């Protein structure tokens, strides 16, 4: 499906490029992985990445995020937004395992099936503030669950800055995300009804995830580039202490050929 969309984007390229368009379309083909912090889980592979966004005067769609901009001036842009929570992405790649030892390493009388509990996507609504200048780019956001899934909220701050070196463009960025107790516990906690001898119940409190990212691109032309991306995100201590979490951080990377329409 993704390949068909990429082919369609390639065919549409001359039409889209003919005039300034509210659309932002791109595709990157290469190889990358994002580690999965969950126990009994697989890393998330990536071969093809698509960028599909539409920026109207007020309304915009950006790779799954929906927004309505109500302030846009020389200093800031502010929008009301809706999105899906991103923590759910790891729960789609878990495996079932049978263990013969309990959580503290004592032998069990019989093998127990350990299943990483499933979690749902949450629809979140909130506000986002953007600002930029010669000093870089700032993004602040606050989102509350409106789907009744985790009933929590998240506050996020990101800062990045770009550097040009001839045909290279390098953008380091850092960010912090505060996750409320309700959000953290929904995704990373273990309910009593999900617990057994090998997977103890766990209640997660609130916490702050920290991340840093480095994006680099070598531009062959305005449209074509070789893109590199690496991102490290550290889970907050409360989430990292969960018995369903094996690693306290996520590391992602990608290298590939990118086309911007």
């Amino acid at each position, binding site marked *: 499906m993704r390949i068909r969309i990429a082919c369609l984007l390639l065919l549409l390229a001359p039409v889209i490029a003919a005039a300034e368009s509210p659309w932002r379309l791109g595709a990157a083909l290469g190889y990358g992985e994002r580690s999965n912090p969950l126990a009994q889980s697989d890393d998330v592979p990536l071969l093809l*990445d698509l960028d599909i*966004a539409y920026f109207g005067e007020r309304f915009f769609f*950006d790779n799954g995020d929906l927004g309505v901009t109500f302030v846009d001036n020389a200093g800031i842009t502010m929008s009301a937004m809706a999105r899906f929570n991103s923590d759910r992405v790891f729960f789609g790649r878990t495996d079932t395992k049978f263990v013969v030892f309990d959580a503290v390493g004592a032998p069990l009388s019989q093998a127990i099936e350990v299943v990483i509990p499933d979690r749902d996507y949450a629809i979140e609504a909130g506000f986002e503030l953007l600002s930029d200048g*010669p000093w870089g780019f700032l993004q602040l956001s606050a989102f509350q669950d409106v789907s009744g899934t985790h009933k929590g909220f998240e506050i996020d701050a990101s800062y990045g800055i770009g550097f040009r070196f*001839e045909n290279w463009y390098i953008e380091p960025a850092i960010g912090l995300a505060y996750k409320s107790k309700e959000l953290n516990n929904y995704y990373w906690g273990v309910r009593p009804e999900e617990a057994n001898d090998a997977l103890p119940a766990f209640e997660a409190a609130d916490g702050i995830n920290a991340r840093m990212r480095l994006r680099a691109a070598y531009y062959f032309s305005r449209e*074509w580039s070789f893109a590199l991306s690496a991102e490290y995100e550290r889970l907050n201590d409360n989430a990292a202490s969960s018995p369903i979490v094996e690693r306290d951080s996520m590391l992602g990377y990608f290298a590939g050929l*990118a086309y911007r329409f």
Partner: protein
Amino acid sequence: MKRLLALLLLVPLAALADDTASEAHTLSVKPLLCIVDARTPACEMRFAIRWASDESGYYCVFNELETEALRCWRQAQAGDLRDDRTVAESFSYWLKQGVDAPVLAKATVDVLKKDSDDRRRRRRTRHVWDIL
């Protein structure tokens, strides 16, 4: 999948090739790309311009920013020159046989603006990868 991969690998090579109006006349300009953003709104560039023709004659190199030729050659079949310029917008070089003569070959210097007027285009998305 293999065809798409081949296409993706071949097209950027084509993008690297210089613009030319015809095979009888070639105009090569290097570099062809300037990247600008809010902190560096223009590129200080030295262009290496080289032209060639199948036939000897009177040829001039122009650019879109000036009405007069950068340089002209008499009874020449090839030539080269350097042009130092501060670039903030895309523009083209042309090979012609005089001010009012038709364009024989053209090469366009592109400017890639990393900072859009619409700052929403720079937002970090919740996209799993957010590579592009």
